[in-house]
């Protein structure tokens, strides 16, 4: 996978989630630089899932907690590239790459036989400046979408629906000023619109004369 191995910056997370309807969906967020992984209490999530739904209606702003997949050791790349007849499902746009496979966050071993997991590679070309906070927002939105499309057929069309929704979400984050363009990016073509200057995001125009 050239795409995953080219840029190894801190914004590389891989987020893996079970697609199947078994219910014990887990997602893992793995920072690339720090090896320590944040494990969520999976069993509690399972039990409280019904209660969560009620609570979510009450507090509307509550974000969905990403439920990561456990890290796997000894992941081998299956070496099934397209020219050897390998197939995988993916949705690849500039900032969102979703693969129905397990991708090891460190070695980038690409195991597309594990089709029950979805891996999200966020902004591999480093167009935006990401913080942990905004990453978590995107991941929780991804988890929300994965839960929403539960039971849908696992096709590229569905993956592209999810990927496009995440792209629109990233655009929304950009427009509200939560993420910024990375001015040190390799390709600086402002693919989500030119940066706007001249006003801050508090709703007030800046005073030009001062």
């Amino acid at each position, binding site marked *: 996978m050239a795409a995953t191995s080219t840029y190894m910056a801190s914004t590389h997370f891989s987020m893996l989630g079970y697609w199947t309807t078994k219910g014990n969906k887990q997602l893992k967020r793995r920072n690339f630089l720090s090896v320590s992984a944040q494990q969520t209490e999976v069993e509690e999530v399972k039990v409280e899932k019904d209660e969560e739904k009620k609570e979510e209606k009450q507090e509307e702003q509550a974000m969905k907690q990403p439920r990561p997949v456990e890290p796997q050791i000894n992941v081998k790349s299956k070496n099934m590239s397209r020219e050897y007849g390998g197939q995988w499902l993916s949705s690849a746009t500039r900032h969102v790459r979703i693969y129905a496979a397990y991708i090891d966050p460190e070695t980038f071993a690409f195991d597309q036989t594990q089709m029950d997991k979805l891996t999200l590679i966020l902004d591999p070309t480093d167009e935006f400046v990401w913080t942990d906070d905004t990453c978590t927002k995107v991941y929780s939105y991804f988890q929300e979408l994965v839960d929403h499309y539960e039971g849908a057929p696992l096709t*590229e069309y569905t993956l592209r629906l999810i990927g496009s929704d995440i792209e629109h979400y990233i655009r929304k984050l950009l427009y509200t000023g939560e993420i910024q363009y990375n001015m040190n990016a390799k390709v600086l073509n402002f693919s989500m619109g030119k940066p706007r200057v001249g006003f801050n995001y508090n709703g007030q125009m800046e005073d030009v004369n001062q």
Partner: protein
Amino acid sequence: MQGRLSAWLVKHGLIHRSLGFDYQGIETLQIKPEDWHSIAVIFYVYGYNYLRSQCAYDVAPGGLLASVYHLTRIEDGVDQPEEVCIKVFASRRNPRIPSVFWVWKSVDFQERESYDMLGISYDNHPRLKRILMPESWIGWPLRKDYIAPNFYEIQDAH
């Protein structure tokens, strides 16, 4: 207003409807989907050995789907070959039209494109599957009631 071919079809008791002539004076006929395969064979035997084009369109919102065939009779030493245009209409709910692949082989990809864009399923077509869109695509893009999904495309890049 009846063309030569229409008169010939009437003479042989074949059900059709004349739709007049197009701007080039080419006779246009409407044929029912259930009769279309047998009439296509009859046209081939009559001498229309060349299918110039096949296309399809959506007639109106909520209306019928049409599959159009332009046939030509190719012979030696003819500078004005006989031509005819056939339109076959199918209902939007269950659009089934017999394929003429086994009569004119060149209709293969064009019927696949009509299937891909409008969802007309051609019976007896050997490999009727999407040709332009990805195979997992949902919906028929050229139908008038098609709503494009809100897929992300790069629009603002400079």
